[in-house]
Structure formats: structure tokens, C-alpha cells
């Protein structure tokens, strides 16, 4: 049977991708950011996923203002890295697991989460930067990827509670899939950051730390944080953190925190990262 064994929370700051693509990772500015990912790369080599279920937001790339799905699941055979205005990132094409993706779509829709199904979709830095962070710069990504896009651009994003419960539905879907697969779920975005207007550059490390603590220890409480608190305390773009609750919802109530990394700054943003393992190694709940 397929099983979700672990969750990864990680920022998807575009400048991290640029630093890797242009060979700047040993620069003093970037060195502390990447030092915190060394353990993560060793961990994912040891716990190699067959499939990564990757929760991220599209940044007006696959979706323009013309169409804004709250949740959109990538069911295509492959997803090309998009030109976001600076030319596409020089990273491999992302390959999907079509059968598992459509199984998840069917299962969560019957579970009353009305997803949009994407049979063609380009992917932006929100998806490719987390892969680069965890896998480095391989010629081909070492696993298949199922993308789940969450709208966090136009207010309101789905609530933390909705995201958490969607994670639970994704878990039920994976648990009921017959192929023997190791699935790792990524929640991406954040941590505190504001990219716009006069309050740009806002960083709130105490709030971020509390968010990470809640994620590990009291995820239900974390999932109840209201939108206005993210926007006020963690910056207007800090609302991206609702996506981490999808990841957390798909894990067991009790998890082992095997790694945490936090660093300020990367561009305008606080970089946060956590790896949580299911204590039961993903046995059916």
C-alpha cells in the first residue's frame, strides 16, 4: 500500500533558486541558508520518496487574474518549469504520477473537497525551489511529483482549518492506494515576509518560531490561526503558511521533528524549514 511517511515544510523564496542556478551558494550571504539544508538532503537520500505530494502556490504564472482556483491538483504526465518574467529556471521537467494523482482527486472530491483538476500546467518557483532545496541539482528529479496549488494571492486564501482537513483527506486517499509507494508531503511558502508597499521587509522571528512549535506539537491549534493574524504578524505574504497545514494534516497526530532550520534573510524573507516523520512510519491511521 502507498503510505505517507514524512512531511517537509520549506520556504520557496525565488532568490534561493537564483542563488543555486547562478552558483552563489557559497557566498557569505547564502552560505548560512544552504548550510541548514545539508542535513535535509542527507535525510531525503536516506528516506527516498517515490512520490512527493507538493503543496505550493502559483504566483500568477499558470493562473492569471482571469482564473483563481482555491485548490488545483496537477494530474498531468509532466509539468514544465515556467517563464515567470526572467526566463524559465534551468531545472529538469517535473514528472507526475498520473494514476495516483487521479486517485487522490477522485478520493478527496468524494470526501467533499471540490478540487480543480489540471491536466496541463506549467510550474513556477513555488514548486521548483523546494525540489532544488531538497534534491540539489540533479539532471532529472529523483522522484515523481504531484503538485497541489493553493490560492494565496487573492484574499481570502482557504482557512488553515480547511487546509488541515484537506491534508487529512489526502492522507485517506494515499492510504487507500494499492501500489507500494513511499510518499513524502511538502508544505511550502513563508515564513514571515511582506513583499509590498511601505511595510515590505517585515520579519517576525518569534511568531515564526511559535508557528513551527505549534506545527509539531499542537497542529490543531495552529490550524485555527485566523488570516488577519498571519497578515498582521507575519506580513501580507506570510499568509502562504496556511499551506503548511495541508502537509501537517496528512501526518499522524504524533510526529518526530527530525530537523529544523530558520534563517533571516533570504531576499525579503525569513527562511523556515522543518522535517516531521510519522512515528508509525505511515501505517494506516
Amino acid at each position: 500500500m502507498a503510505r505517507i511517511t514524512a512531511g517537509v515544510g520549506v520556504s520557496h523564496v525565488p532568490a534561493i533558486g537564483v542563488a543555486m542556478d547562478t552558483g552563489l551558494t557559497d557566498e557569505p550571504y547564502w552560505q548560512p541558508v544552504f548550510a541548514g539544508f545539508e542535513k535535509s538532503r542527507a535525510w531525503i537520500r536516506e528516506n527516498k520518496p517515490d512520490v512527493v505530494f507538493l503543496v505550493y502556490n502559483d504566483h500568477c504564472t499558470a493562473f492569471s487574474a482571469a482564473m483563481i482556483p482555491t485548490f488545483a491538483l496537477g494530474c498531468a504526465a509532466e509539468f514544465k518549469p515556467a517563464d515567470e518574467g526572467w526566463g524559465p529556471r534551468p531545472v529538469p521537467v517535473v514528472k507526475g504520477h498520473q494514476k495516483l494523482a487521479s486517485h487522490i482527486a477522485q478520493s478527496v472530491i468524494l470526501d467533499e473537497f471540490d478540487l480543480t483538476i489540471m491536466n496541463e500546467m506549467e510550474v513556477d518557483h513555488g514548486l521548483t525551489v523546494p525540489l532544488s532545496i531538497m534534491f540539489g541539482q540533479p539532471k532529472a528529479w529523483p522522484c515523481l511529483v504531484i503538485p497541489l496549488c493553493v490560492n494565496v494571492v487573492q484574499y481570502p486564501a482557504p482557512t488553515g482549518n480547511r487546509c488541515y482537513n484537506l491534508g487529512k483527506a489526502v492522507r485517506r486517499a494515499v492510504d487507500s492506494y494499492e501500489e507500494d509507494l513511499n510518499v513524502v508531503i511538502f508544505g511550502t511558502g513563508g515564513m514571515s515576509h511582506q513583499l509590498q508597499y511601505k511595510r515590505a521587509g517585515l520579519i517576525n522571528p518569534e511568531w515564526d518560531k511559535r508557528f513551527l512549535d505549534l506545527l509539531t506539537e499542537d497542529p490543531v491549534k495552529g490550524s485555527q490561526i485566523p488570516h488577519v493574524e498571519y497578515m498582521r504578524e507575519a506580513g501580507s505574504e506570510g499568509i502562504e503558511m496556511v499551506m503548511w497545514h495541508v502537509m501537517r494534516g496528512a501526518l499522524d497526530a504524533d510526529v518526530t521533528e527530525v530537523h529544523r532550520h530558520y534563517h533571516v534573510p533570504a531576499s525579503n524573507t525569513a527562511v523556515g524549514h522543518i522535517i516531521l516523520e510519522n512515528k508509525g512510519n505511515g501505517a494506516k491511521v
Partner: protein
Amino acid sequence: MTAKKDYDDIPGTYVFDADMSRKGYHLNMFCTSLRQATGREAFKADESGYLDKYPMSAAQKRAVQDRDWNEMLRLGGNIYYTSKLAACDGINFQQLAAMMTGSTQEDYRDMMLKGGRPIEGNRYKSEWEGE
């Protein structure tokens, strides 16, 4: 009628909600068109001719031509869209943020290296009064 919103008192912030999205729709669709190289080249070749293809307000077109980044946000632009225009000009997110805050590039980068803009004093509009 304008309903009170619980995020209205956050200082220095435009929340891109449905009201802003309606206002900025054509501006944001113009910005989206710059995502592709063909759009960027056509815009660079003839800015005002290109802008005329989009039914934006005169004020929105002026803000684009003046690269008045904050005015674009006020008129319904969203940062993820306006950043496509910035990219077309070769400006990255951090450079854009410095411009929107009225800081120099050096001072902004320095602020970020020192831990960013602190939350203390930056939660409520009332804390910004008198500035």
C-alpha cells in the same frame, strides 16, 4: 456601502481582496502578459501602444509608464503581477521592495541583513500616526 474589514488597520499594506482585484483587473492582466518574452519585447518596443490594448484607466497607464510601484498597488495592482513589470525592467523582488518603502537599495539590504523590519510598532495604523 463599504464593510469594515478586520485587516484595514494594518499599516503600509494593501490586502489584495475582491475589491482590489476588480479595480486592478486590466492592470494585472497587462502585467501577466509580460510573463512571456514576446509580451516583454512588444511592450519595450512601444509602451504606450502596448498599454492601449488593455482597457486600463488613464491613472493606471500613467502609473505604469512612471513606474510608480506604490500607485499601481493603490489602483488595484498586486505585487505578484507588478513584479512581472519589474522583471521586464530587470528589477528583482528585493530591489522592488526597497523602492516601495522609499529606501535606498543599500539601506534596505542592510535592514534585511540586520533581521528585517521589526514587528514592534508595525502592527497597527495607529502606531504609524504622526509619521
